[in-house]
């Protein structure tokens, strides 16, 4: 479904990603692991088109999307749930969900999608009229995921959804992700949480200073000594 070849990107001449090659099959839950500053967010921002690729190619369902605008990518169903949630704080939960489905592709079925999201995440239903900025961290993460789901993703990319959450909520977030995966959604999960991600994903990539250093079926990645060293920065 998604193929990335030789992706290089950075900020103002400083390369952050170098020659990254990744593949995600339809319906798969793929993990992208790495320590702080490894370049994980930069990578999915490249996929969303908000950070430009300096070289390399991104293919989505066979189409080269490397030069497409973020808007065109959203319309193709490449949806990011960003790090730090980035909900619209002064807008209500409902308005945040409405914005999730504001793109041209999702707009016609937006109302049904919102009903679906509210059934999946009943906590949001209780808070529907409340300003997003007044929600707890866990609830904001629910909202960020819900907002992404309203967009009718074909590829859902989650950037550290468990970051800063209480263990109870981390558990819950992973349950939701499992459920989406079981329903056939293709997911790219960016995480620092090594064990949880390895346990839940089909396939994993480990990023170290902008390069893929380990990849494989999750069970193998777990046992690879280079995984630990990537984390400890050895």
């Amino acid at each position: 479904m998604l193929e990335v070849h030789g992706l290089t990107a950075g900020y103002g001449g400083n390369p952050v990603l170098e020659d990254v090659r990744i593949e995600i099959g339809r319906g798969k839950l793929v993990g992208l692991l790495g320590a702080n500053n490894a370049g994980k967010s930069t990578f999915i921002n490249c996929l969303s088109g908000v950070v430009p690729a300096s070289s390399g190619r991104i293919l989505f369902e066979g189409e080269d999307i490397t030069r497409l605008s973020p808007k065109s990518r959203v319309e193709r169903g490449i949806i990011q749930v960003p790090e730090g949630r980035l909900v619209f704080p002064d807008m209500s939960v409902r308005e945040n969900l409405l914005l999730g489905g504001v793109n041209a592709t999702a707009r016609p079925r937006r109302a049904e999608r919102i009903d679906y999201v509210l059934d999946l995440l009943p906590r949001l239903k209780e808070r529907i009229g409340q300003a997003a900025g007044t929600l707890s961290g866990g609830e904001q993460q629910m909202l960020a995921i819900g907002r992404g789901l309203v967009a009718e993703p074909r590829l859902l990319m989650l950037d550290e959804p468990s970051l800063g959450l209480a263990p109870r909520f981390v558990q819950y977030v992973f349950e939701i992700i499992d459920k989406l995966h079981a329903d056939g959604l293709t997911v790219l999960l960016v995480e620092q949480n090594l064990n949880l991600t390895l346990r839940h994903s089909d396939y994993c990539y480990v990023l170290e200073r902008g390069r893929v250093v380990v990849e494989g079926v999750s069970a193998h990645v777990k046992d690879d000594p280079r995984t630990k060293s990537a984390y400890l920065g050895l």
Partner: protein
Amino acid sequence: MDELLQALAQGFLVGSTYGLLALGMGLIYSVSGLVNFAHGDFFSLGMYLCFALFSAFALDPYVSLVITLPAMMLIGAGVYQFLIRPIAGHHLLMVIQLTLGLALLVQNGILMVFGGQFERTPSIVESKLVLLGPVVVRMPHVIACLASFGIAAALYVLLRSTDWGRAIRSVHQNAKAAALMGIDVGRVRMLTFAAGLGLLAIAAALIVPGTPMHPSLGLRYTVITLIVMVLGGMTNFVGIMLAGLVIGISEALGTIYLSDMLGMLMPYLIFVVIMLLRPQGLLKAA
């Protein structure tokens, strides 16, 4: 007593148009984080466009709006796209300098084309008076006030409950997240800048009948607008209209009870006092 009522009515009517001027500035600020110091000069430009159309074709200012509105919006889109966008993201001071430069450019452009004398653009309704009990007000002021509140209300509904409005607010609250929703952030910013100047075209047509214009008045309008916007809480549109009324009324009261000179200073005085007591603006920012 009658004198007081007269001043209050006059201040209310004029204040509503200050509110309208500040809505344009607030709209631009809310999506681009940009304070447009050329706002008053673009407003002057709108008035002079009315004047030119009257001189050339004897168009009534209300009628000339069908030309000045699209013209001003086009100018706004161009200014954003070719001048502001390329330096967006640079240091705030650079953006401020750019809009100050624009102010001088527009002001001197007007001076070159129209000369430095005072001009007036009449309207058929200009000399009509309206009697409200003991109070006498001029027809153009009544029209301007009704239109200002009408536009403010329409803008409020548009921003609250349409996708277009939500897109604008989302860009204001978090531009990156807005882009991830598939919103074209650059386009939204350009369109709101155009809309801000469009509001100025409307305000110009409303204020121009009977109001003398001079190329140098732009800065004064910018300052009054800035005061109203800050007082209103920058992006709170209800607050901005309210602040317009406060400033308009304080100006009218000052002019009647003190002197012309002191009346003009009243808004600044009121502004300083309110900002000392409520630095977040009259209403809490929305």
